[in-house]
């Protein structure tokens, strides 16, 4: 995070039971369409992927979308990945369409925070927003 640089922020809240229901209804297809292999591995529990941890990651993905503001661009959910580091902290990794959107919008320095209790999970994402020269030119022209 850079001081003196504009930011964008996104937040999302999700009911854990919604994730549990999706997991129950669609299983592996749900996991494959939304999460990366690493995320599924990070969320592994004794009885399979933990809906609570998956919900926190989905909230982070949606909070990131609010920062990216993709409009009607296609952004597959796995292109936003929450990575859990050995110390327990988490960070975001953008790939593919999400990475391209961030670069085009002049977004960098993404930071994420997750929280959850028994029923809900939430995430906040913040990024530095330094519009590119082209975007500044567009703003000036408009």
């Amino acid at each position, binding site marked *: 995070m850079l001081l003196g640089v504009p930011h964008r922020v996104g937040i*999302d809240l999700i009911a854990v039971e*919604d*994730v549990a*229901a999706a997991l129950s*209804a*669609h299983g592996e*297809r*749900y996991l494959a369409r939304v999460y990366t292999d690493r995320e599924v591995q990070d969320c592994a529990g004794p009885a399979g992927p933990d809906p609570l941890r998956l919900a926190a990651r*989905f909230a982070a993905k949606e909070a990131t979308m609010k920062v990216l503001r993709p409009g009607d661009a296609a952004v597959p959910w796995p292109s936003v990945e929450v990575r859990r580091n050995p110390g327990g902290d988490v960070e975001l990794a953008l790939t593919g369409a999400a990475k391209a959107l961030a670069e085009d919008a002049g977004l960098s320095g993404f930071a994420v925070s997750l929280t959850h209790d028994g029923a809900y999970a939430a995430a906040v994402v913040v990024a530095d927003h330094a519009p590119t020269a082209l975007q500044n030119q567009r703003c000036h022209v408009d």
Partner: protein
Amino acid sequence: MNDLIRTVLRDHGRLPVPMETLADSDDLYRAGMASHASVNVMLGLEDAFDVEFPDRMLTRGVFASVDAIAAALTELGLGAPA
């Protein structure tokens, strides 16, 4: 086609209002469909219509209304919307 789409939305959309109160052109997000529910709707549609939405179609607009979903399914090779 639209009746089956409505069934999928009823089963997976978690809308706070009855589907019967929504027109085919009404915006489902404005009606209260959350982004996570739209994932369930997508998977439900794939089951119901035996199709797979490619990455390029995973946009907010594709799942924004019954009409938009019907148009997307038509693009995937299913019959024209009723």
